[in-house]
């Protein structure tokens, strides 16, 4: 059996000398799984995701990613791991000096790909940005920016997709469409983890849900493979 994509064992996290935001978090994301992460605002969802996408090291506990124990991984080993993760940041983090198109193409350029124009255009059309490709992020609506961020996260077909509130700024119809995009990617083998407030999104699928309460993790639904 393959090692799980993500494994947390008794992970604790605090920022600086502040209070512990995450406490004794233990869970596993199997390869190819599709999971929702829920919890009240401030519960620590973004913090948990940051630990997974290697933006912060944990204060204590053990994290392994793609079967690699991060505690013993050297700095130089982290960039290749990061390249296998697509991230939709809660605050998008688009580069304002690049067009929407260039923002989406960025991961492919970093990977040294050349003939990506068709893929990028097709994906942008799919998320409804076909006619906004050459606009700069500051001139896009919140929902449009969010879709650029999502397109950028999925364009390189990452092994692991982490999305932080990816449907917070779009109407329910577009939200459902984006979740379908994630489902499509999941069917192609990508492990998906989505943090959300949106109950209806979670209810509409039968995916696994894990919930953060007071910095601790509660599993609400048994893992299962679902067709979305």
């Amino acid at each position, binding site marked *: 059996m393959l090692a799980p994509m993500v494994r947390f064992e008794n992970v604790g996290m605090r920022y600086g000398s502040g209070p512990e935001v995450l406490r004794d978090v233990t869970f596993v994301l199997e390869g190819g799984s599709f999971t929702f992460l829920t919890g009240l605002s401030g519960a620590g969802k973004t913090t948990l995701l940051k630990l997974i*996408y*290697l*933006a*912060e*090291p944990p204060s204590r506990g053990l994290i392994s990613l793609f079967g690699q124990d991060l505690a013993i991984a050297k700095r*130089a080993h982290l*960039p*290749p*791991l*990061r*390249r*296998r*993760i697509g*991230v939709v940041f809660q605050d998008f*983090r688009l*580069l304002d*000096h*690049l067009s929407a198109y*260039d923002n989406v193409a*960025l*991961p492919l*350029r*970093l990977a040294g790909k050349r003939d990506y124009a068709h893929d990028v255009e097709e994906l942008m059309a799919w998320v409804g940005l076909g006619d906004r490709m050459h606009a700069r992020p500051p001139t896009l609506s919140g929902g449009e920016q969010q879709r650029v961020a999502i397109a950028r996260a999925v364009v390189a077909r990452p092994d692991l997709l982490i999305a932080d509130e990816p449907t917070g700024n779009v109407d329910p119809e577009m939200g459902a469409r984006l979740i379908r995009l994630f489902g499509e990617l999941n069917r192609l083998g990508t492990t998906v983890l989505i943090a959300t407030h949106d109950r209806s999104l979670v209810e509409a699928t039968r995916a696994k849900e894990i919930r953060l309460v007071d910095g601790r993790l509660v599993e609400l639904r048994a893992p299962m493979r679902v067709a979305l």
Partner: protein
Amino acid sequence: MSDSKYILPRDKGAAPLDFVIAVMAFLAALALGASMIADRAAMGWQSGLAARITVQVLPPEKSSDPRGDMMREAGAALAILGHAQGISHANILSDADTDALVAPWVGKEGLTADIPLPRLIDASVIPGEKVDVEGLTAQLKQAAPNATLDDHRSWIARLGTLADTMRYSAYVILLLIAGATAAAVSFATRAGLDAHHEMVALLHQMGARAGFIAAMVERHYFLSALFAALLGTLLAAALFLGAGGLEVIGLEAVPFLPPLSLKWTELPWLLLVPAATALIAWATARISVLSVVRAIY
């Protein structure tokens, strides 16, 4: 990577940074050129004086024929100088030459006949050769008791001190400006990098290696600093060449003061300024990016 121009901001809004770098490079090039001129002047003075020895023969006080005795002693001294090691040639200054020398003080009327002026022997030292001044003095004392030898040692020493002061002042100014330039360039580069901070952090998050991000950013700063500094340096070079032009059109340089221009062959030294400037910008950009990335995790 060929794609870096797509990733870095194209409208970099760095005009003030380029301007600061150009101005600092201009000043640094001026200081460097000035120190070269000071250096050359100091060397010129020292070698010019060191290459001459003067023997002065006074008319003997208790003599029935002071002028005759003086001429005889001058002849003897000339003979000694003529055979001395390290001296290329020596000659007794003629009456006319001597008159010319004292004319500014006593007027143009020939005085040589009435008041016997000392005879002067002007000797040239072969460049690079050492003259045995002590030995010569001893020999002269024998053959020409009223002769005194002056190798301009005290003059040379004083001029040397002056030249050294000038030279070291120029070096200190050059160093100060170089230090200020380095600080300004690295400060400006870091300010420019602040604007790129978000991009650097994002590329890092996307799995770009620190070295890759640094290479992309540092090349950008290297090139823009190089061009800005070249501009400033060219302006300084034009100024130095222009100063030479003034002399050509008749605004004669003050005699004895060094010419304020650089020769064509000396100008390439000024290229040290843009080279150093670009290197500083490059190193600052690299160090800044690497430290930003290291701070992230």
